């Protein structure tokens, strides 16, 4: 009897099946949101327990920050070059050439470097963190930490999130500089704009607040990417298949979180 009741209530041919599905999806969404909130709250609540997490912060800063420098250089160089070349193409003969420099510095500081770098790091850093913690979960290393009377959130998650919050702004400021150089190279060698015109355009339009805005964005992106990745890895279920699924979820969720946060910050701070 019980089995038939279950199959009727879950029948996809029922006119109410959509509500059942929505209910399940809603449950899962709010369950995940609540679980994520709990982890962040626990992390903040135990922030005083520096003895547990301080040991791992430096190692995580190297892994998240220093190890990401090559990919940031690569992406930022091309971001700068493409912005310069496309700006020159769109403004051809209409307005003075130094405007290209202005456009590049504005676009790079406000939007392109923070957003594109964050999307690339969502893949690199986010996936690495989830795979690492997920593997620790399925091989019972996180249980072992708890059995040794450690708080696994303070030991594993706090140093990663702190390292992300510190290193993302550093990477993005570095990326801004590289993108500006890339813009100069693209302008000079592809769009035939003199270096002086490009640099004067950049100087005319540079505002400190633009750079500060980029740093605020980077800090938020660093927090979102590392905390979501940690949450996903920490709650992996179902062996190596679960690790793969959680890693994919991290990449998708962090990319979505980054673009939504990008819009929210632009709306509030600009």
């Amino acid at each position, binding site marked *: 009897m019980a089995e038939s009741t279950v199959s009727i209530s879950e029948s996809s041919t029922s006119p109410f099946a959509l509500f059942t599905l929505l209910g399940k999806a809603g449950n899962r969404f709010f369950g995940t949101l609540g679980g994520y909130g709990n982890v962040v709250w626990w992390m903040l609540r135990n922030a005083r327990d520096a*003895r*547990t997490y301080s040991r791992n912060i430096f190692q995580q800063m190297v892994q998240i920050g220093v190890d990401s420098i090559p990919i940031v250089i690569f992406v930022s160089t091309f971001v700068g070059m493409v912005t310069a070349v496309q700006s020159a193409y769109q403004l051809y003969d209409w307005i003075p050439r130094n405007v290209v420099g202005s456009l590049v510095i504005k676009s790079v500081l406000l939007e392109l470097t923070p957003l594109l770098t964050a999307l690339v790091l969502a893949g690199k850093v986010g996936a690495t963190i989830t795979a690492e913690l997920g593997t*620790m979960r399925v*091989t*019972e*290393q996180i*249980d*072992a*930490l*708890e*059995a*040794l*009377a*450690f*708080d696994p959130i303070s030991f594993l998650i706090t140093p990663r999130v702190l390292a992300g919050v510190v290193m993302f702004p550093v990477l993005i400021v570095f990326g801004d500089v590289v993108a500006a150089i890339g813009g100069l190279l693209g302008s000079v060698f592809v769009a035939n704009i003199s270096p002086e015109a490009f640099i004067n355009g950049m100087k005319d339009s540079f505002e400190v607040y633009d750079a500060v805005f980029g740093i605020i964005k980077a800090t938020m992106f660093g927090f979102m990417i590392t905390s979501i990745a940690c949450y996903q890895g920490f709650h992996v279920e179902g062996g190596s298949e679960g690790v793969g699924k959680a890693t994919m979820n991290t990449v998708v969720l962090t990319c979505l979180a980054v673009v939504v946060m990008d819009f929210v910050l632009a709306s509030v701070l600009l």
Partner: protein
Amino acid sequence: MIRLENIWKQFSGKQVLRGVSFDVRDKETLVVLGKSGGGKSVLLKMIIGLIKPDSGAIVVDGKDVTKMSYPELRALRFKFGFLFQGAALFDSMTVGENIALSLRRHTGYSNEEITERIEYALSIVGLENVTRVMPSSLSGGMKKRVGLARAIALTPRYVLYDEPTTGLDMETADGINLLINDLRTLLGVTSIVVTHDIHSAFVVGDRFAILDQGVTLMTGTREEIQNSDNEEVRKYINSAIG
């Protein structure tokens, strides 16, 4: 003393434990026998508060683990050493760092004292010159030994063994069984061993609890379970001995 009273637990709608009860006396080794997937490992994790039962009580030294706050649970875990099924060594750390981790965090030992404790713990499990080795370079049996050295580094009162001989060849498994007996003699610990390997169980156990379909079929000494009139117990023993 550890006492489990009427423990119930379900996962994703599947009832795994349906009222398990047994007790573990001081300084004895109790072996929990049962088929794979029967919730034996879950019981061990419940004893140190890693998993909470849906109902029932787990009393350790007079205090109910299921009602403990997080700080109380952390304090309780100092009394326990836990050998996980796959050893669960931290693979980003060397053998020495694995053992030193809890010593550095929870004791005021100097570096020299920690080094001495590491060497002592490794000598008890019969290993030497492996402190700088990464866990990935160790064999299955050596991993279990290092896991055991890590578990006893803080000189626990209770040691929990989750399938200590699973995945090991017979000779290595015999070595681990002897080690479990040696630890009890050397350190005077109370132990719970979860296994489906009845041959190992008879080597290390003083008393036995047999789980089947989520309930305790019987608890008793080797003689008591071997001479039991309970049909289910006889069936389990015969199938386990093969």
